[in-house]
């Protein structure tokens, strides 16, 4: 079990962190949006102090409400989505595939 660093949450989130997170989230925020987001995220996270004060060391995390079991099904052929119908919804498609701009080599 990782040690919970309780001092982490008392720090106010900085604009630098917000800028980094926006890149991770592939959101191209403007400097004004970064500034507003920094303030708003700080306000939301400030409420976390209540929770941070709780002793939760004996409590197990709950990821979802229903006890999940692996679901196995018979390996039988069944209709699937029509490829052309799926590709028709794509912004660009070619030769039965999704078409995207170059993945590497054109930075900036």
């Amino acid at each position, binding site marked *: 079990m990782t*040690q919970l660093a309780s001092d982490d949450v008392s720090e106010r989130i900085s604009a630098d962190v917000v800028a980094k997170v926006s890149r991770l989230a592939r959101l191209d925020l403007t400097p004004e949006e970064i500034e507003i987001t920094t303030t708003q995220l700080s306000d939301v996270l400030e409420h976390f102090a209540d929770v941070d004060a709780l002793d939760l060391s004996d409590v197990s995390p709950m990821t979802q409400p229903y006890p999940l079991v692996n679901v196995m099904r018979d390996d039988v052929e069944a209709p699937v989505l029509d490829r052309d119908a799926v590709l028709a919804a794509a912004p660009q498609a070619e030769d039965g595939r999704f078409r995207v701009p170059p993945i590497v080599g054109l930075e900036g």
Partner: protein
Amino acid sequence: MGIIPTTAAGIADAVRDGSVTASDVVERHLAAIEAREHEIHAFNLVGADAARTAAAAIDAAVAAGDDPGPLAGVPVALKDNMCTRGVETTCSSKILAGWRPPYDATVVERLTAAGAVVIGKTNLDEFAMGSSTENSAFGPTRNPHDISRVPGGSSGGSAAAVAAGFAPLGFGSDTGGSIRQPAALCGVVGVKTTYGAVSRYGLVAFASSLDQIGPFSTTVDDAALALEVIAGHDPMDSTSIPEPFPRLREVLDRGVEGLRVGRITDLPTGADPDVIERLEAAFDALGAAGAKIVDVEVPAFTYGLTAYYLIAPAEASSNLARYDGVRYGLRVDAPDTNAMYMATRHEGFGAEVKRRIMLGTYALSAGYYDAYYGKALRVRRLISDDFARAYEHADVLLTPTSPTVAFPIGAKTDNPLAMYLCDTYTIPSNLSGHPGMSVPFGTGADDLPVGVQVLASTCGEATMFQVAAELERAMESATP
């Protein structure tokens, strides 16, 4: 020509016995939409032609002696985050505008198989993130009781559609209260079932461990009827409950004699006095009908909001990663793929969606994961355990649905935290996975509707509906 009933159950009976045609039912509802939709804006899309075609098919089936099903000819309004094959499904977001799904959600399939007629797709807060239906790329929905006010959200379009008489049944999704809160603010019934009772297949995901589809209706019986059609196991949803869904309509007349109705003594404060007054009246009504009112504690209830605003955004940031301009929806052209992702998401998402993606990405990022997301999941367990203990002493719990009546449009748009507080009383049961429903119970300030929330334990829908039906009877006998 028979008189067209106002309830879904009444319409279905009349269409099945031939006293009313599905075509006349659809025309009457299209006329209601024509008369008021311009000021309400409940719909992103009204499918008049498709509805007329579907109604004609129902009428042909009745004429041929076939039974079109338990929702024969009943117009239904679907929140625009449920996939409808070949029909635009936008989530009220620019990033999905124009997208026509290649398949139907399971709920949509079951509704149409039961004879329901889809009359339109309703407005929502973008990707179901909000409590007022103001965060829509296509403009706000207005409350039919007072068009200067919000209908609640995020399923505000479906709630408003039912309240305005555009359709006897609406369907929404509830992640933190998005069915129950707008139901309360619009004066209609709204139900969130036990997590896993209704299939999520074809519901555009917001927070997958919290999302549930459910009905809006004008009567408790109609909500029961709708759930009996849409609920039940679906192999296409791996979190679908395998056990059969309870029969609800047959319990509505049983009364509440001997049932234990819990009052949460440590419920978070903040509800307006007019709302509390209606809650007390609900306790009185149930007590008078023979229920036993018991005090219970749910200490972790108060931490629900905080845990939710880490868990839901965390799941959303992951679910919404799929909107990248590759497979569907908007693409903003750029010289390379990464720049295309950034430009597409910048242009396609609104402010609240970006805010939640940011919050979720932060909560899940290296160095913060345990401190935020990990702790929130532990609080979720506390809440669930506290509810389980309370349900040892009470069959249902009663709370306000919303802390206030419908508020003016624009009142909370600049203050995300104030908006989040709208869901104080609804969020904890999403975290625990328990069912909850809002029942209209009179009016509060400015003669606006107030809803009372009935909560029950896992798969306790039958008891929940028994109590809801008693509250409905109490209101009917109180109204001259």
